[in-house]
């Protein structure tokens, strides 16, 4: 009975974290980066950060609305001084984790050494997670949003002012 309970617990834990992908493989890429942004925020951290966002400030209001329903936000963004410091093949461990039927590609564009992919995770047909991969010769961004149910929430982020 105890073993059965443990198996159920492991199964639930696995399902609960299925939308979260392992970004460890990117650490190797980040070593040579000239600029890096690494973020690991679970639901509690997001909630606490969201509480400090103002609804009156334009950018912060957009951010607050976006993270409202998220239960995890994980990002690796690396920029390189020299082109070719990073190879698209290095993203294979990340892409290998995105498997159908749970994960479905929405956008896949690969041209001239650039790669753009958006994958959506669904549980019982309902979207509940997302991965964005945008790689160029001198830049790579991998974002994993747990709890993303609507792409338009993230598209709204494009209205935020450019990086300050």
């Amino acid at each position, binding site marked *: 009975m105890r073993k059965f309970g443990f198996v159920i617990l492991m199964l639930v834990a696995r399902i609960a974290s299925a939308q979260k992908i392992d970004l460890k493989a990117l650490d190797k890429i980040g070593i040579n980066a000239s600029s890096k*942004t690494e*973020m690991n*925020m679970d639901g509690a*951290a*997001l909630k*606490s*950060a*969201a*509480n*400090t*966002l103002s609804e009156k400030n334009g*950018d*912060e209001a*957009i*951010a607050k609305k*976006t*993270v409202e329903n998220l239960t995890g*936000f994980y*990002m690796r*963004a690396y920029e390189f001084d020299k082109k070719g410091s990073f190879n698209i093949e290095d993203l294979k461990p990340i892409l290998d984790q995105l498997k159908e039927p749970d994960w479905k590609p929405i*956008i896949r*564009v690969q041209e001239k050494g650039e790669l*753009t992919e*958006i994958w959506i995770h669904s549980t019982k047909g309902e979207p509940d997670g997302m991965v*964005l991969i*945008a790689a160029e010769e001198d830049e790579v*961004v991998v*974002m994993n*949003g747990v709890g993303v149910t609507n792409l338009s929430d*993230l*598209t*709204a*982020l*494009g*209205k*935020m*002012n*450019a*990086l*300050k």
Partner: protein
Amino acid sequence: MNQFERDLRESLRRREPPADFAAKVLARTRDTEVRSVFSWRWLAVAALVALMVSGTLFIQKQQQQVENERSKEQLMVALRITGSKMKDVQDRLNAIQQRMVRLQGIQ
């Protein structure tokens, strides 16, 4: 001398205190002093503890605020990057769409 004067004289007659009177008074004074010093000491300790606890809570609150502010800044940077990439994706898709429309026009 009438009775009244006699009573008055008797009442006002000098009486010697008991032999240990001075010792008893001194002992009581010392006791009161000790008790008073004792309570002041506890009061000071309590005040110090209260000061330390409130100070620690204040510092913790300040640290929490700094931590929240830092998390907020990090989150804003990450969301701006995401927003900019989503915009890039949209632009790229629009460009592809325009290219396809142009190709269809040529054909």
